């Protein structure tokens, strides 16, 4: 198992290099640079700045320097946030983003699986119809529409919850962002889970379980759930990717000091190192998540062998 994890992580290195190269090239393809101004700087000063950030070297040279710095764990200085390195910025924002992302995926997973299973068992009842219609809305309404509505309603009209700020991770401050971020995923997961539950309930081995005279509760818990949850495990990685991109907007709307805003600001201001740094972090997280969901899948389904 440990061997497998190490192997998969080693395989991830080329993937990461390709991603780094891609971001590197895309950023430099964008017109302008980090030090482009309305008013041109005196050429000597500009030359000095360029030299300080290695921007005077050729692109392949810059790339090699950047990659070799990364292997030392140094993502370089931020071009725009003066006196900050990318490492410092990420370290300050990452706990916020991680808390938001992880809680959202956990909430989405539990609620989605629960609602989907119940809807599948009670299919074509009122409960099923309500869950499925609400989830359809959840899929159609993007989180950047949902977030302001939630803030308006719960924050301003009802005055129940704070509408912005991190407040050292106070749970009240997190409720609205987590809701806005996880609702679309709850919708998708519950629909998938419903379909999968219905399919499993119709399979022959459930007929066998019924023929044993077991109670409905035991049949669901021991025979249905572990089979019907498999598509959700496979969906875990794409769902997390969706959450990551969603969190960039949500962090802006709720004024959370996560890394999402660095990504947006960095891209707009051609902060090459900051964008690459955040990108590498996202990519690494995603690779780890895919690995995690593969391991979980093999753990739940004895027919899957890890190689």
């Amino acid at each position, binding site marked *: 198992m440990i061997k497998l994890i190490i192997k998969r992580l080693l395989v991830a290195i080329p993937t990461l290099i390709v991603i780094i190269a891609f971001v590197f090239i895309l950023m430099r393809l964008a017109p302008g640079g980090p030090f482009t101004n309305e008013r041109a700087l005196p050429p000597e000063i500009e030359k000095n700045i360029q030299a300080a950030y290695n921007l005077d070297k050729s692109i392949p040279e810059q790339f090699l320097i950047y990659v070799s710095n990364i292997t030392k764990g140094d993502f370089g200085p931020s071009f725009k946030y003066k006196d900050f390195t990318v490492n410092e910025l990420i370290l300050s924002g990452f706990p916020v983003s991680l808390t938001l992302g992880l809680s959202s995926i956990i909430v989405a997973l539990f609620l989605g699986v629960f609602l989907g299973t119940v809807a599948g068992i009670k299919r074509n009842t009122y409960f099923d119809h309500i869950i499925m219609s609400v989830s359809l809305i959840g899929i159609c309404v993007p989180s950047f529409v949902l977030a302001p509505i939630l803030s308006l309603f719960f924050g301003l009209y009802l005055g129940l919850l704070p509408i912005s700020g991190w407040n050292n991770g106070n749970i009240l401050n997190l409720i609205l962002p987590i809701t806005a971020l996880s609702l679309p995923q709850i919708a998708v997961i519950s629909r998938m889970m419903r379909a999968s539950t219905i399919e499993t309930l119709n*399979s*022959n*081995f459930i*007929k*066998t*379980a*019924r*023929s*044993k*005279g*077991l*109670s409905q509760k*035991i049949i669901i818990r*021991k*025979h249905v759930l*572990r*089979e019907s949850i498999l598509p959700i495990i496979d969906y875990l990685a794409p769902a997390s990717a969706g959450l990551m991109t969603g969190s960039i907007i949500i962090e802006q709307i709720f004024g959370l000091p996560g890394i999402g805003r660095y990504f947006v600001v960095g891209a707009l201001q051609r902060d090459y190192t900051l964008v690459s740094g955040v990108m590498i972090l996202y990519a690494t997280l995603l690779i780890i998540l895919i690995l995690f969901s593969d391991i979980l899948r093999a753990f*739940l*389904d*004895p*027919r899957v062998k890890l190689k």
Partner: protein
Amino acid sequence: MNEILKVTNLSVRFDTPEGLFSAVKNISFDINEGKCLGIVGESGSGKTQTFFSITGLLSNNGACDGSALFKGINLLGKDSKKISKLRGKEIGFIFQDPMTSLTPHMKIGNQMIEALIYHEKTGKREALKKAKDILSIVRMPRIENIMQKYPHELSGGMKQRVMIGISLMCNPSLIIADEPTTALDVTTQKDILNIFNELKLNKNITIALISHDIGVIAEVSDDIMVMNEGKLIEKGSCNQILKEPKKEYTKHLLSCIPEWLN
């Protein structure tokens, strides 16, 4: 002779999008204790639904009426809780497709002892011991490791032996076998039918054997009942049906067996 199951005026209907479909039309029959009743008919003749309905395994859109007395208890009465207690305990089931009839993520041992633990609150160790004994009755090869294996690691014949084992765990008095040999090759088929004969003789277990294959039915049955389009065509002893069939349909069915088999 003691009748263990007495079915009278049983009808089964399905509520389909195309309207009500009548799958079983007003049939009556009984099975004597320790005997095997073979039910023959082409697919769609209602033979499976007859037995699913009296044991409460009908799909959600199905409904049935009539009466089915199992040891004097009406299975079609209102007390559905009682019936699910009989299911798996007094009445065992074997299904057609062994490849998909076992839960893929559960070890064979756990699947076998589940019903015993649920119905009789037996301890796990004791239940596993019983499962081993039963696997030797169904002549399972390599019994030692089988408990820790998953269904996908077993062959079709082995899976069907496990299914028979599961149906035997709580010492049932009736086993309903729905096309138990259809998915198996002939040598395994023969083996499974021999096991049925042994169960009948040694353990006095009553068997309802559902099949479209008269050859299979003739191998174990004492009585035969012929069904077509939800109706009971003819019933009688095995010899009478095979040698002197009274109804046209039965004669047709028998004429479908290749000559060289007789």
